């Protein structure tokens, strides 16, 4: 290939992960802008089962690597990726910033002396040189990075930032890359454990549905608990609900509660007192629903709806049915 863009897709337990399609879209954009070829690669014990899902326009080739282990194993993936890079010589490698990639991506970059940046939120070529953006100082600033003198740069890209590439049924050629991976495994998989949700930790949630005084009465809270569950969100609250004794302090977002940085913060019936905003303004996507157009929460929200929270909740439930 020499000089192309290589996207390493990711699957877990038989499902291709959404981030892979986001990487394909980003990869396509970058490849087009620099006049490079785009390839996707996947390492898995049965990699061929994902070929159909990786079909997206603009892919020159899909590379499959058969892993000797049934489950993800950091050392196997590390070997596979390193070997693919040495063999195919891409100039840019894209991975998602995922739990799996945290186990091997940086190791590959360090060992092979690649350009490297993680948790990337933006990337582009300018006059043939690659520039990426990522957060700095805990997301308070944006850093712009360059990779002078690097033949190959590896980026791990934050999930949920880029839109997914449409899967369009195009059928790029598939090539199985055979690599010597038999001895690569270094850990032993013992099984999976489902975590019981005993103590809710709202700071770890990716999606928070947060309710405030607009809920008016303790009696109205259970319907939002149900809505949260159906949305796949964790329920959190603003201080007045804790003050009133309707919800435990563990659910409180705010300066005197918890500071949260979820992917999505959907605030309903929260006016946005200063102390509350301090606890959630760093969320990636803030959507606010409040019947008061002057509610301060709108000043930090990315999207706002001046509407009745109960009506919107009903409408959401209807759509989820």
């Amino acid at each position, binding site marked *: 290939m020499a000089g192309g863009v290589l996207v390493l897709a990711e699957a877990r337990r038989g499902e291709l992960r959404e981030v892979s399609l986001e990487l394909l879209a980003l990869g396509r954009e970058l490849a087009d802008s620099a006049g490079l070829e785009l390839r996707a690669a996947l390492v898995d014990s049965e990699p061929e089962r994902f070929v159909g899902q990786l079909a997206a326009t603009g892919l020159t080739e899909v590379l499959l690597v058969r892993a000797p282990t049934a*489950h993800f194993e950091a*050392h196997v993936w*590390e070997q596979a990726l390193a070997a693919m890079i040495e063999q195919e010589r891409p100039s840019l490698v894209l991975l998602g910033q*995922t*739990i799996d990639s*945290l*186990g*091997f*991506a*940086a*190791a590959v*970059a*360090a*060992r092979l002396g*690649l*350009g490297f*940046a*993680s948790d990337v939120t933006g990337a582009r070529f300018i006059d043939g040189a690659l520039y990426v953006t990522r*957060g*700095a*100082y*805990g997301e*308070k*600033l*944006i*850093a*712009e*990075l*360059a990779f002078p003198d690097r033949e190959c*740069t590896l980026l*791990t890209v934050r999930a*949920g930032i880029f*839109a997914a590439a449409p899967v369009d049924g195009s059928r790029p050629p598939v090539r199985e890359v055979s690599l010597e991976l038999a001895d690569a495994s*270094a*850990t*032993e998989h*013992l099984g999976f*454990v*489902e*975590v019981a949700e005993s103590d809710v930790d709202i700071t770890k949630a990716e*999606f928070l549905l947060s309710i405030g005084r607009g809920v008016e009465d303790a009696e109205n809270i259970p319907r939002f608990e149900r809505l949260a569950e159906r949305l*796949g969100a964790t329920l959190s609250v603003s201080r007045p609900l804790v003050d009133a004794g309707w919800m435990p302090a563990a659910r409180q977002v705010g300066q005197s509660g918890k500071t949260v940085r979820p*992917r*999505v913060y959907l605030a309903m019936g929260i006016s946005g007192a200063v102390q509350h905003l301090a606890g959630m303004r760093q969320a*990636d996507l803030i*959507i606010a*629903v409040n019947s008061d157009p002057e509610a301060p929460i709108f*000043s930090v*929200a*990315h*999207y*706002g*709806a*001046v*509407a009745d929270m109960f009506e*919107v909740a009903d*409408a*959401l439930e*209807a*759509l989820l049915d």
Partner: protein
Amino acid sequence: MKILVCVKQVASLDEEFELGGDGLSVDPEFVEWELNEWDSFALEAALRLREQIGASGDEVVVATVGAEVAEDGLLGCLARGADRAVRVWDESLASADVLVVARVLAAVARREQPDLVLCGVQSSDAVNGATGTALAGLLALRRVAVVKRIEPEPEGRALVVERELEGGLLERLRVKLPALLTVQTGIFEPRYATLRAIKQAREKPLERLGPGELGLSPEELSGHAGARLVALRPPERGEGAQLLDGSADRIAARILELVRERVG
């Protein structure tokens, strides 16, 4: 058994801050330093493992690549029970990126020859999530990232760990020593140091080394940098929310769309 814990003193910014002269860092006047939260858990894991496996001659060593501000964090670790601390620094490391730091730590690790290396999953200021893994790669160490639980096997030659996956799932793995683990927050409740322990920490060994003393030259190091910082700027703050209007149905539909784009 020797456990090496790699820690970082992280920068936390005041509400309002200014950039320093070169525009590539924050003016130190607006920066507060503290030990990275993840590393605190890594240290706690090390201290507990030592207590559990417990043999004489066991050592927990903390190491950091950092300027003098990092000594505070190291003293905190010594106060909590670490035996020795190592700080590597000189001016050439001022713009070190994650791969350079990993290289320096690798040199420290080769010197120390630990049975186990523990790092935090990520630092709260740079959020690379890469140092530990890069270090493992350079040392060719077995590793598991994002570890939520560590159980030593009775003879202490292997560990059973649980790796935290997205969606609250855990994977159980067995890894033989020597190995490197990156530790997730919440693994144990970190102990704190009493006033006496804090005072006594000053008597424990704290070594200060330059990269040269580890056999690393500045050219070699900078040549291994993964990236170069070219600009630092504030994030764009929108002019307030983008309005979703229309009926409750339309608003709900749009909300679902936005949510799905983000969390799938």
